């Protein structure tokens, strides 16, 4: 297994408030890794640090053997990392088509883009039906599929997902979970999945880290964590 991404003792601050306090995590090629934890634990901050939206204060982020921290957001995309941000962040007044095309902004191979677009529309047939519709008129679930598709348009090697189940009907959460599994299998992308729905995250990932107050408090194999009494108590609603 090759190491794809690693955090080495990363600290991140918002003004003077810390969000990450010495975080070390790893992700190997082909893996799906989950980050779970309560509100404000620092999950999104890890993703923001990877994409260059936020500068880290100390420590080091390595991607494919090269240093990643200090790289600008557009450059990070070019290196093959795409993110589905928290709260979806669709381009509300653009059509589904234009939203998807924005995902391929860093690419210039027209036939390749067409091909990726076609495969995304096949994976999410709803998007094909709504292709020329304005994004703001889509349901929450459809918007989530669209932004996952938008990220895939970059043809990433690493896909970052920030709470894809947030604000979505329970029935659709399953669809999204299945889509994530299928994407990592079919496209061979590695996935870093941030979720408050810990049960879903643990059931579709290989490994997981639990965060609390900016620190990793638990880590391990997802299947084992699902049965770990500490995890059950803290993250799975205590339904032991």
């Amino acid at each position, binding site marked *: 297994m090759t190491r794809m991404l690693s955090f080495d003792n990363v600290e991140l601050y918002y003004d003077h408030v810390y969000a990450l306090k010495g975080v070390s995590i790893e992700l190997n090629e082909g893996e799906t890794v989950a980050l779970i934890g309560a509100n404000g634990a620092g999950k999104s901050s890890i993703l923001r640090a990877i994409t260059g939206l936020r500068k880290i204060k100390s420590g080091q982020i390595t991607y494919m053997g090269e240093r990643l921290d200090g790289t600008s957001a557009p450059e990070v995309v070019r290196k093959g990392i795409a993110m589905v941000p928290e709260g979806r962040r669709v*381009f*509300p007044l653009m059509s589904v088509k*234009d939203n998807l095309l924005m995902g391929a902004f860093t690419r210039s191979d027209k036939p390749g883009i067409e091909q990726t677009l076609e495969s995304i529309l096949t994976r999410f047939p709803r998007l094909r039906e709504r292709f020329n519709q304005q994004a703001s008129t889509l349901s929450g679930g459809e918007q989530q599929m669209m932004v996952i598709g938008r990220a895939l348009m970059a043809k990433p090697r690493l896909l970052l997902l920030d709470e894809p189940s947030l604000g979505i009907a329970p029935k659709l959460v399953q669809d999204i979970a299945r889509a994530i599994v299928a994407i990592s299998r079919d496209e061979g992308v590695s996935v870093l999945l941030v979720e408050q729905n810990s049960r879903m995250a643990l059931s579709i990932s290989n490994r997981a880290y639990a965060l609390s107050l900016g620190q990793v408090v638990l880590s391990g194999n997802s299947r084992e964590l699902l049965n770990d009494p500490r995890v059950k108590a803290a993250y799975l609603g205590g339904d032991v």
Partner: protein
Amino acid sequence: MEQIIANGLYLGAQYALIALGLTLIFSLMNVLNFAHGQMYVLGGFVCYTVVAQLGMPFIVGLVASALVLAVLGGLIERFLFRPVIRRSKRDESTMLLAAGIAFFLDAVILLLFGEKQRGVPKVVNGVFNWDFRIIMPYDRILIGMLAIGLIVAFILFMQYSKAGRAMRALAQDRVAAQLMGVDVDRYSMIGFAMGAMLAGLVGALLVTITGVNLGMGGPTSIKAFLMIMIGGAGVISGAIAGGFILGMMESVGLSVLSSYGDVTYLVIFATLMIFLAIRPQGLMGKPWG
């Protein structure tokens, strides 16, 4: 009646172009460009210099105005707005900067071109006369058509080109646009350059009809902000609607109210105040589309 509509369309097309540049800059950078009118005046003087002084064809003057203003706009963004936006989070900082640039450009125009009214010879001669219902000189028709052509080109560019899509994305969600790989600095610069270019182009178009003088900068900026307020800030359709509505109001005012003296803008301001009290976000609301 037909005459009033024709005049309104002619004026409205120019105004809409000015408003489009202003709203583009606003929606990309959240900057109120108070120097927009001065950029328009500068465009007129560049065209005057190329056509009347150097004796080149009008089309060369148009292109020269577009280029000079695009470069100037790019430089202003890169060396003035960008560092200020980076250092200060307060909106007032860029407003003060824009006002400062307006005064500075006024001074530059005075220094380079003086305070005289300048114009260039008619591009085409003759008058179109439809049964005395619409009487309009051919050069006005030509300039009006050019302006409408530019509006259409701008819309097509924003709608279908990759750069246009990136600018719409940036205006709608800055963070998401960055995550798609859009370089904010680069597209702010392109957007500012395009906005300035549009202002310069209108100045160059109108120098053949009304001429240009130093004093037109401030009033033009004010008109541009009126249009944005009517149509709604940051919306393409709003800028176009605002431009044509103001053009129409002016045209109606000039023919209907002229017997009462110079009251057109008094009436326009009063109407606008009432309108904004009822609908503060303008006709088309806030976001970009």
